[in-house]
């Protein structure tokens, strides 16, 4: 893990409320390797009252030269990050947490993302493809305008879409998509809003498919020191930042009816 100053080399709107940022080491050096599902903690500068870093999952990497973040504007911290432009410097601690499990490599995994939760699935899908697997992305959003970076997913692997208004792909929630009935998958990875992840976990359990979820509990240190971001698991309270953010669903003490 390192604290590094990164320089923004690309900053492009991914939707009205989301920004795609490409970041490279300000001194031109190579970045630490990042596994799919790991995250960085971004320092928020020059924003009155904001103290803590913001945990942001890694959307993609360009070898060791750059990393890509997909950021949804939800509060003051993410608003600052979304307003970064080419040439701006961003301080990050990286890489943090454990990534998704890719060994043993599933042969037909389904990667289900909702909203900005699609972010870590792109790097995962690319890695799984590289390892010889045949991943399918299933991406959900409220409308076709809320689908983030759709083309990049389509370029990486087979991509299916569900929108609540029916503006793209099948109409409805990701868990109502017909592919879940039509095809057989041997692993499900998911990241998105909590109700979506719980619905996905229910589907996976009903079908007997192993399922990993990426949680985004509110964090402070990102290093497993402050014990603020704990999740209740079969092993007690564990830090999402250090033991996660990815967990097998059977380890979580979720109330599935929520």
């Amino acid at each position, binding site marked *: 893990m390192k*604290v590094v100053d990164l320089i923004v080399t690309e900053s492009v709107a991914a939707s009205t409320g989301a920004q795609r940022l490409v970041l490279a080491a300000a001194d031109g050096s190579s970045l630490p390797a990042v596994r799919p599902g790991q995250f960085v903690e971004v320092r928020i500068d020059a924003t009155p009252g904001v*103290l803590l870093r913001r945990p942001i999952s890694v959307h993609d990497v360009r070898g060791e030269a750059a990393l890509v973040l997909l950021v949804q504007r939800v509060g003051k911290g993410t608003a600052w990050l979304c307003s970064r432009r080419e040439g701006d410097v961003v301080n990050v601690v990286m890489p943090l947490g454990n990534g998704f499990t890719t060994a043993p490599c599933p042969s037909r995994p389904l990667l289900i993302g909702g909203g900005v939760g699609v972010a870590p699935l792109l790097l995962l899908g690319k890695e799984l493809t590289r390892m010889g697997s045949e991943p399918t992305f299933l991406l959900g959003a409220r409308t076709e305008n809320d689908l983030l970076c759709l083309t990049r997913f389509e370029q990486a692997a087979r991509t299916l879409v569900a929108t609540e208004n029916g503006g793209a792909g099948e109409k409805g929630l990701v868990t109502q998509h017909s592919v879940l009935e039509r095809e057989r998958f041997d692993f499900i990875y998911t990241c998105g809003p909590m109700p979506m992840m719980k619905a996905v976990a229910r589907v996976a359990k009903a079908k007997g498919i192993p399922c990993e979820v990426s949680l985004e509990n509110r964090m402070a240190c990102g*290093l497993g020191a402050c014990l603020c971001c*704990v*999740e*209740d698991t079969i092993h*007690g309270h564990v830090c999402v930042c*250090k033991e996660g953010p990815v967990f097998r669903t059977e380890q979580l003490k979720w109330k599935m009816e929520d």
Partner: protein
Amino acid sequence: MFSPIRIGNLVLRNPVLTASGTFGYGTEYADFVDFNRLGGIIVKGTTLHHREGNPYPRMAETPSGMLNAVGLQNKGVDHFVHTLYPSICDLPTNVIVNVSGSTIDDYVAVAEQIDALEQIPAIELNISCPNVKQGGMAFGVTTDGAAAVVKAVREVYHKTLIVKLSPNVTDIVAIARAVEEAGADSVSLINTLLGMAIDAEKRRPVLSTVTGGLSGPAVKPVALRMVWQVAHAVTIPVVGLGGIMNGTDAIEFLLAGAKAVEVGTANFIDPAVTMHIVDEMEDYLRRHGMNSWDEVTMI
């Protein structure tokens, strides 16, 4: 290099310690700090028995600060002695254990076990945690309660005994005096200030416990005031903490009368912050033509 600082029998190479609960057991920060350049680390609050702590959510960011309600999550003193201690006792800095409890007997039992650990030169007695239902702060908010627990621990603990004081009291000076009288070698202050955050849209408290402990730059003026008051009222050394983010903040605590400082919440924003703080403090002494930490006093 400046000459070391003494707190009881504890010898610090510089005045910078890490605050309990913000630095884990040190190893979490191994990629970011050089332990040879820290006065010491104060590890996570340790209780007699395993504690799961409070339910999530336990943290809320507030203007220039944060609330926490971790609730002393730790695996108990036996786990510390048998599993954690062997892995951290060789760190090249002072490793100090923060000791917490719900009853006097709990505090005594933990202190006795830590006393036997050769490479732990001091404990910090936490009589001021705002996030546990019984004990903790209950001892820290009355002079009799504070004196009773310190006296009992003093009988079994033979090394340097630092007592961490709560700011959630009417008269912190009276508590500090009672603790000094009861045999403490030092006091550290302040622990977190009791606070609350509300989510207006959800119309619910943010924390599962409703209230929690406030830390970060927001509390620094309160901490400085209390350190200044206590340092002028007791003869034992005072360790100051509360919202220290940089070397200047730390120097302000020395000017208020503290002999050493603890850095807490700042570790979350910059895991290497303690290294910068040491550099900035040493630079301050050089810029002011000072030859020792004792010279950092108000004029």
